[in-house]
């Protein structure tokens, strides 16, 4: 009965969501400044949730956390705090900008989850090793048990 209405509404809502979380153009007629302010608030909310899930990362970046995480998350659709934070930590590592003391948090997530976008837990046993500043960090996972060294 409302198929036509659903189609029209769906297109309009998708355009607004794209403007808010995918950096798409502001749909016609909207107050562009309000759309921008809302998009910014959404990114801050996501970054705040990431800070809860990734406390070492948030603590190490301190006052830089919100702007750094916000800039990295803005072009990506919201993926939840685990995936969003993973993206931030991985990007910083790849660019050599991961602050000291954070690598173990990133390796622990990589030891538990597959990097296939679905956040499926890995099976069997996994070991992740990396250098955090001058120290070696080793994360060992077997089943549900997680062991960090270094």
């Amino acid at each position: 009965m409302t198929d036509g209405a659903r189609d029209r509404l769906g297109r309009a809502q998708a355009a607004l969501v794209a403007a808010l979380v995918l950096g798409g153009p502001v749909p016609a007629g909207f107050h562009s400044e309000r759309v921008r302010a809302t998009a910014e608030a959404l990114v801050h909310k996501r970054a705040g949730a990431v800070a809860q899930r990734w406390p070492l990362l948030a603590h190490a970046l301190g006052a830089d956390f919100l702007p750094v995480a916000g800039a990295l998350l803005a072009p990506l659709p919201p993926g939840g705090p685990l995936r969003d934070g993973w993206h931030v930590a991985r990007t910083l590592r790849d660019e050599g900008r991961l602050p000291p003391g954070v690598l173990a948090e990133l390796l622990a997530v990589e030891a538990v989850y597959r990097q296939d976008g679905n956040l499926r837990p890995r099976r069997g046993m996994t070991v992740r090793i990396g250098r955090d500043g001058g120290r070696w960090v080793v994360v060992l996972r077997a089943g549900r048990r997680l062991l960090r060294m270094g």
Partner: protein
Amino acid sequence: MTAATLPGDLGVGIGWRPELAHLLARLPGLRLSEVVAENLRPGHLPAALTDLVARGVTVVPHGVSLSLGGAEPVERARLAHLAACAAALDAPLVSEHVAFVRAGGVEAGHLLPVSRTRDALDVLCENIRTAQAELPVPLALENIAAPLDWPDAQMEEPAFLAELVERTGVFLLLDVANLYANARNHGYDAVGYLDAIPLDRVAYVHVGGGIEHDGLYHDTHAHPVPDGVLDLVTALCARRRPPGILLERDADFPPDDELRAELTAIERAAARATARHPQEAGRDRRGA
């Protein structure tokens, strides 16, 4: 369905959060609370929450992901979860929002406003009926705060809500902090809004704090409740006292004493209405 979905007068309560569990456990007069349904596993409720239910506190499951205002049909699994939460908490009703949270396969991660058009109203009503058919208890819907507004509105929000209630029999969860935020950010009269919505359908009320930033008022639930929001509690109670009022605090949790003081301030704001009501009635008579 009658207007009374909540048993009697539930006073002023506070939303359940893990960080507030200790405070709620030590509020002997507490009769109303609320918990975000998406954070619960109905078969594994936190003991602090089941203790409240055992004490006789009404705990309302509050959904944030149904996207009732969305163009897509409501997902049955989400409805089943909300229904299971209601059963696990023995709740007399559940609540959600007049909002959408996803479109075109993308999650917005936030409650977004619906356009107040005939199309949107038709879709929303259909989604609400789907939800009502699956839920074991009545549904109450909350007005959200949004600095954004759709450019194609065909009616004001009170008329939109009134028609929604009329067509579906849904109840309202009136958030006076959201009303305060929208009235400030969009420049309309919040008290006039109270006069234009069906107050007899308000199941309970939300109160929360916020802050002004860059010329916009943000409903943060992380700051103290401003006087303007408390004034709306008074204005509302002068018209019709709701069955319950609930304080929402989600972050930057202050010491217990500060939250207790906020609960007292809300109680006083509601009580001021009783004191003021005869005068207002008198003024009405003189004006008639």
